[in-house]
């Protein structure tokens, strides 16, 4: 049957006002339901008619999912808190600046006013083959169109390629991993709390989704522990346009220093693989070392070990190396 794009499919819209009501709705509709945060990832998938859910559960009316609360020196951020609110929040700015900067680097002011933190970390890939409705692995098919000799894959993965070469495009995800944030997930079966690092899935684990969220799961909050409050933070994002653009590569760093020595560090890059890539090996290598050019060089080289660039994205290797060096060098 003919394929046409650019038109909202029909669906039933639900606007619950409590998490329990939302859970009941998504429990009832199962895989036919789709959760609606700010809609920025959802609406163009709907408009392209690539997804056609029977029910849309809009979280916009649930007060308990909104806002930023201080909890024991850390923060609990409701999943529906907008990126703009996070970027301008005084405590996020003063204590967890890496998150403020990451949220502030997303898309454009309009996108940040509408996009939510929960949605931003749960968004799907922007691989243009997948998003255009090609029947690739991620869409349940049996090939990857972005990894053929003629594919245009400048924006694709250089790490952990496993059939699918799509990347996670989120700016806030690496910042949350760097801060060791905890994701609070609820379903009708109860609540579980998962480290941000474990929230994201690569194609080796599940090629059709990017997070651990199952049908019936709701991300209710993101907890940022006090552990890294006030540390040295860096966030850098490289993109083609200064606004309205996803990262080519981004990097989030949290670092504790004393006397010029790196005491502890978490270093995460995104848009280089299907999930944010925490650079454990680099962290281990630079811990205890001075923050200088030599350490930076070492870190840069370690960071790109095992990179497997595609035809059009070799530059991402140099870019990742340089961004890591810069993060260490300061």
């Amino acid at each position, binding site marked *: *049957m*003919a394929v046409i794009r650019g*038109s909202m499919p029909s669906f039933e819209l639900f606007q619950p006002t409590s998490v329990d009501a939302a859970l009941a709705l998504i429990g009832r509709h199962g895989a036919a339901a789709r959760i609606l945060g700010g809609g920025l990832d959802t609406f163009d998938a709907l408009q392209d008619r690539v997804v056609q859910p029977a029910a849309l559960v809009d979280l916009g009316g649930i007060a308990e999912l909104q806002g930023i609360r201080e909890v024991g020196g850390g923060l609990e951020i409701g999943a529906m808190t907008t990126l703009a609110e996070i970027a301008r929040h005084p405590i996020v700015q003063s204590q967890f600046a890496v998150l403020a900067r990451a949220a502030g680097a997303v898309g454009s002011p309009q996108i940040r006013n509408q996009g939510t933190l929960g949605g931003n970390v749960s968004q799907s890939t922007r691989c*243009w083959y997948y998003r255009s409705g090609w029947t690739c692995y991620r869409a349940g098919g049996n090939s990857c169109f972005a990894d053929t000799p003629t594919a245009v894959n*400048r924006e694709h993965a250089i790490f952990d390629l496993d059939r699918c070469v799509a990347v996670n495009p989120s700016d806030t995800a690496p910042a949350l991993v760097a801060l060791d944030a905890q994701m609070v997930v609820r379903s009708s079966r109860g609540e579980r709390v998962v480290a941000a690092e474990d929230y994201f899935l690569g194609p080796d684990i599940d090629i059709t989704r990017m997070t651990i969220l199952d049908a019936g799961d709701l991300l209710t909050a993101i907890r940022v522990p006090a552990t890294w409050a006030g540390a040295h933070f860096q966030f850098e994002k490289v993109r083609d346009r200064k606004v309205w653009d996803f990262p080519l590569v981004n990097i989030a760093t949290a670092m504790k220093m004393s006397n010029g020595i790196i005491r502890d560090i978490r270093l995460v890059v995104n848009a280089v693989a299907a999930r944010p890539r925490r650079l454990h090996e680099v962290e281990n290598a630079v811990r205890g070392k001075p923050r200088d050019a030599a350490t930076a060089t070492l870190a840069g080289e370690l960071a790109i070990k095992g990179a497997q660039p595609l035809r059009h994205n070799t*530059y991402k290797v140099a870019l990742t190396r340089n961004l890591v060096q810069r993060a260490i060098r300061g």
Partner: protein
Amino acid sequence: MSDYKLIGHNYITPDLVAKVTGQAKYAEDVRADGMLVCRLLGSPMPHARVRRIDASAALAMPGVRAILTADDLPVPPVAAAPSPPPAPGTSPAPAARSGAAGEGGRRGQRAIAVDEHGQPIGGAAPTPAAAAPAGTLVKAEAALTMEPLYEGEPILAIAAVDEPTAVAAIERIAIDFEPLPFVVDPLEGLRPGSPNARREGNVLLQGNRIVELKWTDADFAAAALGQLPAGAVPDGDAWSFGDVDAGFTDAALVVDESFVIPTTSHIPLEPRSAMAYWQNGKLYMHCSTQSLAQSVPAIARYCGISPSQVVLISPYTGGAFGGKNPAYLHVAIPALLAKKTGQPVMMKITRDDEMNIGRSRPGMIGRAKVGFAKDGRITAIDLFVVSDGGPYGRGDHGSGARLASVLYQPKAMRFRGVGVLTNTVPRGSQRGPGMQIAPAMELVISKAARTLGIDQVAIHRINAPAGKAPVGPPQRDGSRRYVTSAFVKEALDKGADLFGWHERKAASGTRHGSKVRGVGVAVGTYSAGSVGYDGLLTIEPDGKLYIQSGCGHLGTNSVFDTTRAAAEALDMPWDKVVITQGDSTRNLPWSCSQGGSQTAHAHTRANWAAGLDAKRKLQEIAAKDLGGRAEDYTVGGERVYRTGAPGRGLTFAQAAKRAIDLGGAYDGHELPSEINAMTKASATALAGRGLMGVAKDTFKHDGDTMSFVAGFAEVEVDVETGEFAVVDYTAVVDVGTVLHPRNCQGQTYGGSLLGMAHAIGHRWVYDRHYGLALARRFYHSKPPSLLDAPRFQWAAVNLPDPETPVGVRGVGEPPVGAAYGAVVNALVDALGDDAFRRTPVMADSVLASFEAGGKPARGALAFHV
């Protein structure tokens, strides 16, 4: 010029409030009782034949009213009789071709010949009509097709009670396709044994004939790595003047480089939605268009009816950039569906549709071999260009060569080009078509400047056109055409000052942390005026001046700005002027096609002519009533009075009443014979309302009117990330007398940003194995955003063009190539001569070149990546 009260002064255009308050109604805002909505179904393949359409399930759905396919379209009446290219020296082609009335395009006027997109027809002197034309005659592009030639080409449309129903119905249609061979890269299409984009061949000639042209393996093998091979080209696409060989022999330096230029879509923010209904045998069409008067006959042609059956309502257009001129052929879809159903039909064009059927600028590979004397003077240019014609076009190489010939004033030049058909989106003129040759030429020129130790500004200055500078290929008699005037050296000098060229240049190349800066300059040009159109106005008994404007309101405001010439001629205060535009029933005069930056020139002339006509009539009436000769009377202060005796005169209101009493020519009951039929009909309808000024522009005009811009750019590149910014940009325009400074500045900024877009990010991307487009959304195709815009500075040379009464030339297109070239030169300055051989330059190419020690990705002449 400083005596003008209106020309050269800022004012608030009459559309401002409607636009900023959202009251302005665009085509898609229009509603009518019983209105249906139609949507298009595009081809899922790059080239196929539709074997069978089964729409039975769709048509059986409640709310679905009709289907339209290619079979329902009118047979194009002119397919068998392609018009020959107009001879140089004739008036603009659109008028001659559009069929409404030929007078607008009468021979004998010296003006630049432009095609229906306003693109100058700058080909070689026509070869004498001898042998039967080569190739297969094919039909022109139609609104719907049974043999789609690109992904997204519309096959059918469904009209239903609402959009969701139309879309759901389309999803129930079954189509049986026979896939056909395709090609997305023009250079690939020239390889021996490669598939052709169309069954008839791969190269479109003038007159809709298609031939097959393949280069040999030897042609490809002869080219050095990274150089464009130079195989055979069609006859009409080659010309030369001067002694090219001697030019190279005598040169102190010869630089020879190939460069890949992207295809870019026009992306007007208003897509080409259109709403149509029929009443009393007439088609009422609401759509967006670049040109109002000229779109009436065009719409008639698209719909297979006569111009007198078309009512066009188009008071606002949300951008066009060359892609809606005149209107667009898809207006036939709602028109014919409305006829079929007897109900109004809104054709909704989505962004996805617009990316497909909206036009795109042809990409190119240009190889420029240029010889330079020691002082930087260009001794010879040998330019070879392959352009991407898309499925229906010829490409922009001819126009590009013409622009190069005037910009750099070579003593000798040879040009060869070929436009190759591809199964990618249809190409059309985009603001400054041909300007995309800029990076190919500029890269070579700035490289030569560095090699010869000459300043970039100096090398542009020594080669700059001045006065009645020659332009284009030789004509039949061997002579070359020339421009009306050029003040490029003045623009370069003024720009260098304003920009602070020398200080910035001194600082360029120095590293601050990971940042390095570079500066670049380039000159851009484009046609900037035509002649021979009509002006129409009345001074009515209420004392006001009513000016009819047949121009389209495409956002440039020339529809209003040009009327100021009429008011100026009559010394009429602006608050007493009422402008009528935007609706073909409202008695508008014949006007130029709004491509090729013609309007500001063409319609200041036409309005000036109408203003002078009214002025003469005022003087004659005063002389009749108050004695003496007409010349004894002065027009000013809303009166006509005896010179030296201001008390003896008539107010405009009184004169208007007297004109009505006198009748005849005074109130429009007798009309000049040379005006166009559309103007005549409009003037006849307005006759008796007051004193009429109506005239055709017959002012003298010698040369091709072209405008020029000198652009200066500074970029800052982060060598660790490849990110860069255009931090500063200065443009100095040589556009004759500045008509409306704020608008001129706005046009310069907009045009410059479009030019920069080609340098810094805007792109089309195809998967060549599947022939399908990937960069369908703005975040893929990456036109620059507001924050990518540099700090802008603007100035004008402001010297009147001597070949037009108020000295005004057009400004819309010349800024584009200047900015493109200047930014490329600035990037080369920052990154090194060999850092890149294609645009857009983006973080990846910058980093890749740094990683490779300043070398470009050689051997990669591929398109659409």
